[in-house]
C-alpha cells in the first residue's frame, strides 16, 4: 500500500544541521486524502513540511511521491507533482494577481515561459476556484493578506499538483476566510483527488477537514489516526498540556472562567 501512496513519509527524521527535530515519522496520503499536522508550538510541524517540500534534506528516511524519492528529483520534476503554500507571504510589487497565479505554470511552460491559451485557461480556472478571479487585475502588493493568500493558492493550483502542502494557511485569514479556504481544500481533495498535507493551529478546523491527523510532540509522533481517534479529551490534554476538562470534543474548547491565572492577583 505504501508503494502506491501519492505521498509517503518513510521512517523520516527531520531537523537542522544534523540535529533531529522530529524522528521516526511514518505516514502516507492517498489520492484525495487530507492529512493534518497538529501539535504545540515548536513541535516541528513546519520542519516536517519543509523537508517534504525539499527545502530541507531528511536526516534519515525518505519522502516518496508515488513511490519515487522526492529528494532525488529535479526541482522541475517535483514542481509538476507537488505545490506549496508557505506561511510567509512574499511582497513583490508591480505585478498583477493574474501574473502571480500564472507563475504556477512554471513547470509546464517552455524555456521562455510563454503562456499558451491552454495555460491561460488553467490560470483563469485556478483563480476562480481560489476565489481570486475578481482581483486578477489588482497589483499584488495592494491587496489584503487574505486576498494575497487566495492568489498564492491559485498559483499553487496552476501547477496542477498531485500533492498540495500548506504551512499554516489560516494565519492571515479571518473566520470567513478560514472557512472558505477549508471548503476549497476539501473540494480539491474530494473532486480532483489532490492529496493535501497541512499544518493547522485550529483544532476545530482540523477535526472537520482531516482524513488523518498526525500529532507531533517532543520530537516524535505522539499519535496518528482519524479525527475521531485523535480528538479525544485524553489525547488532546496530553498533546497540548491542557488542564483536565478544558477540551471537550464537539464543543471544542471550554474556558474555565473565574479561574485565576498563574502570576495574577
Amino acid at each position: 500500500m505504501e508503494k502506491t501512496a501519492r505521498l509517503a513519509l518513510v521512517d523520516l527524521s527531520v531537523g537542522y544541521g544534523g540535529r533531529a527535530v522530529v524522528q521516526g515519522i511514518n505516514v502516507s496520503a492517498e489520492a484525495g486524502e487530507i492529512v493534518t499536522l497538529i501539535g504545540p508550538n515548536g513541535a516541528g510541524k513546519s520542519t516536517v513540511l519543509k523537508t517534504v517540500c525539499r527545502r530541507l534534506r531528511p536526516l534519515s528516511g525518505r519522502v516518496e511521491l508515488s513511490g519515487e524519492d522526492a529528494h532525488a528529483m529535479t526541482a522541475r520534476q517535483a514542481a509538476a507533482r507537488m505545490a506549496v503554500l508557505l506561511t510567509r507571504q512574499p511582497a513583490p510589487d508591480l505585478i498583477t494577481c493574474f501574473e502571480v497565479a500564472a507563475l504556477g505554470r512554471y513547470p509546464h511552460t517552455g524555456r521562455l515561459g510563454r503562456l499558451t491559451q491552454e495555460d491561460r485557461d488553467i490560470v483563469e480556472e485556478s483563480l476562480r476556484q481560489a476565489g481570486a478571479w475578481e482581483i486578477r487585475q489588482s497589483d499584488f502588493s495592494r491587496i489584503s493578506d487574505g486576498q494575497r493568500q487566495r492568489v498564492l493558492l491559485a498559483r499553487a493550483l496552476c501547477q496542477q499538483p498531485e500533492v498540495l502542502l500548506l504551512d499554516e494557511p489560516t494565519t492571515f485569514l479571518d473566520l470567513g476566510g478560514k472557512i472558505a479556504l477549508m471548503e476549497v481544500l476539501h473540494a480539491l481533495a474530494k473532486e480532483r483527488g489532490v492529496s493535501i498535507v497541512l499544518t493547522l493551529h485550529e483544532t476545530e478546523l482540523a477535526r472537520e477537514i482531516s482524513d488523518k491527523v498526525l500529532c507531533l510532540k517532543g520530537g516524535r509522533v505522539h499519535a496518528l489516526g482519524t479525527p475521531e481517534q485523535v480528538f479525544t479529551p485524553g489525547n488532546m490534554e496530553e498533546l497540548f498540556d491542557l488542564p483536565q476538562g478544558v477540551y471537550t470534543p464537539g464543543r471544542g474548547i471550554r474556558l474555565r472562567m473565574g479561574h485565576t491565572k498563574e502570576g495574577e492577583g
Partner: protein
Amino acid sequence: METAGKRRRLAAYLLLSAAFLLFLGLSLASGSMTLKPGEILSALLGKDDGAGAQVILRLRLPRALAAALLGGALSVSGYLLQTFFGNPVAGPYVLGISSGAKLTVSIVMVFALQRLGALSFPLMMAAAFAGSMAVTLLILLFSGRSRSMATLLVVGLMVGNICSAVTDFFVTFADEAGVANLHAWSQGSFSGVSRENLLRIAPVILAALIAVRLLAKPISAYRLGETYAASMGVNVRAFRTALIALSSLLSACVTALTGPISFVGVAVPQLSRMLLGSSAPEAMIPGTFLLGAVFCMGCDLIARTAFAPTELAVSTVTAFFGAPVVIALMLRRSARREEA
C-alpha cells in the same frame, strides 16, 4: 488590463527610443565645434570627409555609442544584482563591485606596463571580471542572506573603500607613466573608449544580454522569493550562479573600458520599473538596457558640455541624478515598514 499593460510598455519603449535618438543627435552636434543636422547626416552617410565629419566619426559617435552600450550593460548588471539580493539598493558601484574591478585592473595595469609595456584587452577584461566576481562573493560572505538594505549598503561601502585604498596604494608606488594612464581611467570616463575596444566588447555584451533574456523565466518566478521559486521548479543554485556570473561579466565589461561609473546600476532599474509599470523581466530587460543607454548618453553629454572646455567626470553627473534615487528608495521602504 493585459492590453493596458502592453500599451503602457509600448509607450515607454517609444519614449525611450525617441530620447535615445534625441541624445544621440545632441551628442553628435555639440562640443567645441557645433555641427548642424545636415552636416551630421552627410558625415554619417559618408558623403563628407571634412574636419566636422572626422570629429563625428572618430570622436563623438564612438563616444556616444560607448556611453549607450556600456550604460545599458551596467544597468542590466544592476538589475541582475537586485534580483539576486532581493534588494533594490544593490548595484555594481554601490556594492563596491566596480571598485573590485578597478583594483584588479589597476594591479594588472601597473605590472603589465612595467613588464610587458602594454596591456592587452583580454587581460584587462579577465582582470576586471575576476575583481568583480571576488567582491561579489566577498559581499555574499559578509552580508549572508540579509535582506536589510542598510547591511548590504554598509558592507558594500566598506568593501569598496578597502578596494579603493589598495588601488591608491598601488598608484602611489607605480611608475610615472603608468600613473597618468591609471589616474584618468580610475575617475571613470567614456572618453577613453577606443573604436576598436568598443567593437571588441560589443559581442561580449550582446552574448551576455541574450543569456540574460534566457533567464527571464526564472527571474520572473524568483520575484516570489527563493522558496517559492524552488517549489515551482527553479533550480535555485544554478540560477543564482548564473545571475552573479552574468552580472559580474556585464559590469566588468564596463569597468574595464571606462573605470567605475557611479549609481547607474542601482538607479536605472528602479526608474525603468516605474516607467514600465511592471516588474516583469520580459519588459524589464530591454527597458532597463534602453533607459541605461539613454541615461548614460545624457549624463556624458552633460559632463562634456556643461562646463566646456572643462570636462566633468561622468560619475559626478551620474551620482547627481542617481544617488537621490537610492535615498528615495530607502525612505520609501522605511515609510512602508512604519505603515505595516
